[in-house]
């Protein structure tokens, strides 16, 4: 290990177990959530809001456990995640190609840029009826919707990242013998990686939003479908259990993603 490497990874000099410290630190960071829990329970107990609207958290938890053990929840979660990850993966593949093409080739930029600019501010959930007409009620319509929603953040991230590459890096690589395609793969993509990964993070969040909202309207399974059908049936504690579970999965996905991202970009904050 080099001297500089050791310096760069300077761990905080805390007495005691660093792991324990990490857990305490995280607990402290998320402690404001307890305030929300208190407000929730307080409002419910006070009678200001009916317990129908804000079921007590114990009931929600037991409903959660029931659905988890029954397998209902996991089955629907698996269905939803397979849709959202298919759409997201497709969006990352196509978005990267489009963004890099725009950044490196003028014709691609002239062709794609106006489309990006017009569709960027459009709420993608407005397309739900359209994709339903096109592709019916099957998985394809949800995957397409998620794909469309996730596409633009990836395109924009890849484009901005690749456009902003320091030209001296490209010139250095070329003068060391790299060809044009090698420059793209070995210089432009890694240099654009911070912005690409940020774009993909936005896309990840969009994929969850579109997954749930499309399943509200066009699905016969999935967590979005569960939420809407439990709500329609007036089974609110179970509905809240699913909502909180979806929120937790989204949070976990984002945490895992940022951990991977930090690892990938350790050269930057080293």
């Amino acid at each position, binding site marked *: 290990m*080099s*001297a500089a490497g050791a310096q760069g990874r300077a761990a905080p000099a805390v007495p005691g177990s660093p792991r324990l410290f990490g857990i305490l630190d995280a607990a402290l960071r998320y402690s404001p959530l307890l305030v929300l829990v208190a407000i929730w329970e307080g409002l419910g107990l006070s009678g200001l809001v009916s317990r129908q609207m804000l079921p007590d958290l114990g009931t929600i938890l037991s409903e959660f456990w029931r659905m988890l053990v029954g397998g209902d929840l996991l089955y629907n979660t698996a269905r939803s995640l397979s849709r959202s990850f298919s759409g997201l993966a497709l969006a990352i593949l196509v978005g990267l190609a489009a963004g890099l093409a725009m950044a490196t080739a003028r014709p691609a930029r002239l062709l794609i840029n106006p489309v990006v600019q017009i569709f960027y501010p459009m709420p993608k959930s407005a397309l739900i009826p359209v994709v339903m007409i096109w592709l019916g009620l099957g998985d394809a319509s949800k995957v397409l919707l998620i794909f469309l929603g996730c596409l633009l953040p990836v395109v924009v991230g890849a484009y901005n990242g690749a456009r902003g590459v*320091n030209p*001296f890096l490209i010139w250095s*690589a070329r*003068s*060391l*013998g790299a060809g044009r395609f090698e420059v793209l793969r070995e210089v432009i993509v890694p*240099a654009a990686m911070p912005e690409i990964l940020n774009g993909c993070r936005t896309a990840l969040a969009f994929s969850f939003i579109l997954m749930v909202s499309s399943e509200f309207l066009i699905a016969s399974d999935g967590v979005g479908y569960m939420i809407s059908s439990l709500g329609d049936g007036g089974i609110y504690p179970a509905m809240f259990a699913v909502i909180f579970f979806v929120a937790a999965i989204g949070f976990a996905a984002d945490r895992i993603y940022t951990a991977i991202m930090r690892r990938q970009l350790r050269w930057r904050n*080293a």
Partner: protein
Amino acid sequence: MSALRQAPAADGAAAPGASGIRIDTVTHAYRSPGRPPVIALDRISLDIGPTEFHALLGPSGCGKSTLLYLLGGFIPVQEGAITTPKGRVTAPGPERSIVFQNFALFPWKTVRENVLYGLRKSGVGREESEARARDFIALVHLTGFEDAYPSQLSGGMQQRAAIARTLAVDPKILLMDEPFGALDAQTRRVMQEELRAIWQRSPKTVVFVTHDVQEAVFLADRISIMSSRPGRIQHILDVPLPKERGEDTLESREFIQLSEHIWRLVREQAVAATRGRL
């Protein structure tokens, strides 16, 4: 003065084929819409020998970096021609490697990976590459920092790593754009001596851009003094110092006299440039 512009190279440049680099009436203008073009280089002609260490000396804005980028093939030649033994320069190529002023290391690669990059590109085998990377990292005094990322190094250390990356591939033509500008005085001196020694061990064409008179005299066999607006070569001078140069060269009478002479010539250019601006 214009007669000096066409002065033939001191060594081995008589036959065009043997020439390291031939620059033939190259003119370069920067154009921006709605403004008159800025002539960065005006009819530059220069022959640089295959084993010549040539310094381009001049005030900032004289187009010396532009000339170097043209030699590198990074910007297209507008008028005139640049030829090397490999033919006309139209694009970058591994036989013409460059060291930029700063910030040209790949920030996502460690020092070792940066140095290995060029070696692997030029088809050197894995083990040989590793050995050469080790040698050149040692040469620029970065042993122990092989696995550090550029963001963990000081500016001077980064620059030394960039120099190692370029020297390791042993290019036929070495282009250097004020490579030691970011270094502190002591390191700068050491690197100058090392560069001269490397060049002597493995002679090649070096084109070295600087605005530092002493650096140019210490390193080069010939010096082109450039003027700005438009960028022209005003004088080409031989440096009649011994091939072997070191600490004592700097104290020699010849070195001091030549430096003073060149300083006066550069000063004329700088004064003229300032007047032009007022």
